[in-house]
């Protein structure tokens, strides 16, 4: 085994983290964690949100400092105090939120933080040449001179990987790299990762998606509540075993769905168009119908009009054309308050921004939108007794884990906040429910709960529009699936006879 990688940089034969401890105020984010990765290996780090995966890796990349524990590279003890130190040691990281600067070109993004061969002057042409060499070597096609904001998400990720290689990353940490990709892009990414492993790179793949971990890794380390549960070889592991390790108890992976009995048309969109925030048409000529007692899933890669769709229906974004009907009544351009009283509920995509007011207490958030109506208010006065009793009922009924109804929402976990939003939106017994990314960033336990509730709601006869970038979620819950691409609905399928490849093609804009 040679000591050099094809990029000309030194290999990391073996990296070990030993007894790593990290404390945040009130939380033990890493509790004596041991972890190791070897050259040529893809080692998956699996765990729920908040299990400590990202924290552990941020320590490896110098973004956090561990309180205890040591890191060894090729048996040598190393101190990593900053990203600069990590880069020097040959460690690269692809962050969950890309660390690219949209207004800069690909070459500028790559050159950022590097010494120029021309001293103070930038040497972007030299950088561009080397980028092209690397992109050929690793089949990562990128154009060096294009500003990053013009690139699709998958391409941006290629730039990130390329940049890490450019900086001589012998070890690459990928933090939830597939979250924003189509199934085809995921395949491409896996292809690249396998090639890198074959060339002798060490790779750490962070994920909470079981099937991806099983498909790409050689070993899997599972974290739970800041502790390492175990490290096992991928061969012989199953989804069920991994899920149990992650959650600490048996988990339902597939739901039993009774047959869908669609009722009357509840929500109808006729040729609806709307502008996006950038000012172009974000939603184009959308026709859509949701019946009572049915879940319609909207699949698509992030940023293809899903957000605009949810906002248009819930009165948060004006339409430029078309009409929207709720139980036959034209609701185009009506205000959110009115829509609310007509029986439209909304679990918004941005939970912390649109879903709750994070400084407010659980009780205050629970009565939001209804706080001016009975039973919470009499004329202009709030009726605190009702507020408290009803909130307490909801906390119990929805199993919201909170110290009290007076706790500020921001100190709750994502899953519990989402259960609170769900409780509030369902408390109105809606006729139509718009659920946008209802389980993003939510732990498996809460996800399971939210999914069950949504299915119950459907069986009660509510019309549910489920907008999600998580294909597994769409497939687990929906009766019908529509796919959005560039603001249009490009396809519709029944869930029973769906083919993931076909869905993926539609999500990428390929229509056969």
């Amino acid at each position, binding site marked *: 085994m040679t000591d050099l990688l094809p990029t000309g940089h030194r290999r990391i034969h073996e990296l070990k983290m030993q007894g790593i401890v990290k404390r945040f105020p009130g939380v033990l984010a890493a509790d004596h964690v041991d972890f190791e990765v070897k050259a040529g290996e893809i080692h998956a780090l699996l765990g729920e949100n908040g299990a400590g995966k990202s924290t552990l890796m*941020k320590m490896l*990349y110098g*973004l*956090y400092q561990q309180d205890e524990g040591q890191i060894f590279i090729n048996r040598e003890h190393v101190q990593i105090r*900053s*990203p*600069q130190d990590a*880069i020097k040691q040959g460690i690269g*990281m692809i*962050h969950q*939120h*890309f*660390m*690219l*600067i*949209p*207004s*800069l070109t690909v070459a*500028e993004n790559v*050159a*950022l*933080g*590097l*010494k*120029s061969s021309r001293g*103070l*002057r*930038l040497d972007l042409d030299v950088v561009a040449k080397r980028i092209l060499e690397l992109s050929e070597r690793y089949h990562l096609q990128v154009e060096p001179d294009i500003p990053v*904001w013009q690139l699709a998400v998958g391409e941006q990720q290629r730039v990130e990987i390329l*940049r890490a290689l450019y900086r001589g990353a012998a070890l690459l940490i990928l933090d939830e790299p597939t979250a924003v990709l189509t199934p085809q892009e995921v395949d491409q990414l896996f292809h690249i990762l396998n090639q890198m492993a074959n060339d002798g790179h060490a790779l750490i793949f962070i994920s909470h998606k079981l099937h991806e971990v099983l498909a790409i890794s050689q070993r899997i380390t599972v974290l739970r509540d800041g502790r390492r549960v175990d490290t096992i070889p991928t061969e012989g592991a199953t989804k069920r075993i991994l899920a149990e390790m992650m959650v600490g108890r048996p988990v339902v992976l597939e739901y039993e769905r009774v047959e869908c009995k669609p009722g009357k048309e509840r929500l109808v969109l006729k040729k609806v168009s709307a502008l996006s925030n950038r000012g172009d048409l974000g939603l184009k000529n959308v026709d859509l119908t949701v019946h009572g007692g049915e879940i319609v899933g909207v699949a698509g890669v992030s940023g293809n009009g899903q957000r605009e769709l949810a906002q248009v229906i819930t009165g948060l974004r004006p339409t430029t054309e078309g009409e929207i009907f709720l139980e036959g009544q034209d609701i185009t351009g009506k205000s959110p308050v009115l829509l609310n009283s007509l029986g439209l509920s909304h679990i918004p995509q941005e939970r912390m921004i649109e879903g709750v007011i994070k400084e407010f207490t659980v009780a205050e958030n629970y009565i939001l939108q209804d706080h001016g109506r009975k039973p919470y208010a009499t004329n202009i006065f709030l009726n605190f007794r009702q507020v408290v009793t009803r909130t307490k009922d909801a906390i119990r009924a929805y199993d919201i884990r909170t110290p009290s109804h007076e706790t500020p929402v921001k100190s709750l976990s994502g899953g519990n906040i989402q259960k609170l939003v769900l409780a509030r939106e369902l408390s109105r017994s809606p006729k139509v429910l718009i659920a946008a990314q209802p389980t993003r960033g939510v732990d498996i336990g809460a996800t399971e709960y939210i999914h069950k509730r949504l299915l119950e709601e459907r069986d009660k006869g509510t019309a549910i529009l489920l907008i999600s970038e998580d294909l597994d979620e769409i497939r687990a819950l929906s009766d019908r699936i529509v796919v959005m691409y560039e603001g249009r609905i490009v396809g519709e399928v029944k869930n029973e006879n769906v083919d993931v490849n076909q869905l993926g093609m539609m999500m990428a804009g390929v229509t056969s």
Partner: protein
Amino acid sequence: MFDELLTAGVFASAIRLATPYIYAAIGETFGQRSGVLNLGVDGIMLMGAFASFYAVYETNSLLLGILVALLVGALLGLFMAFISVTLQAEQGISGIGLYLFGLGMSELLFVKLLGTPRSVDGFPRVDIPLLSDLQFLGIGEIFFRHNLMVYLAFALVPISAYVLNYTTLGLNIRAVGQNPQAADAMGVSVARVRYFTVTLGGMFSGLAGASLSIALLKVFQQNLTAGKGFIAVALVYFGGWRPTWVLAGAMLFSFVNALQLQVKTVGIDIPSEFAVMAPYVLTIIALIFATKRREQPTALTKPFERGE
């Protein structure tokens, strides 16, 4: 009537009047490009103006005047950087604090050390040989018969544009202002870049003050700047954070200013209050139409902390 208004003298005076705005706004551009809004520009200008004036008044050394302005500007810039980068204070508020400090301190020093407004000889006019004699369209008079502070201000614009766009330092500054997390992850020290730009901005503001007190007006009095530093901050927005456009904004503003002075001189019958208002009204209108640009630093006014 237009012949009387649009004379070469008016254009030349527009260029002179633009000088302090150029220094201050270019300096502020560096700070804002890296994500720090310094509203204290006017306060630093006042301190720079007084310090350089007093140095020149006492020693008659113009060089010393400039050095003192740079030093005072650097210290106040460093102070602003400490407050906004290290202490992560609310930038808008701390800037106003810095302004009020500069306003009060320069006045106190003025009253204690000078008492009454006095004048100095200051920077003399330096005519560029040959070029200053150009008669065609009055080019000689408009561009080549100014003092050194004017020439230096205009030279700083292309230099600043070059530094921002074609050097590693400039790339670091732009990156830190757009996405400090990303810059940090790539090994750029956000704090160091911001300290540098804000201190540099302070030095430029000091020069802006000096250009008023020892080059343009050659006097010092209370509140000499009369809010010019705030106009400079507005010009940075107007110019879309690009030095050449900031210069264009400064020129437009100063041209209208020179024009309204000429209106008075020629004796056109417009209430002088309206004439004086004109440049400011124009600035507001221009700012309304100045659209958001891609250069706008998205991290402007946001302190950076590693981690989430």
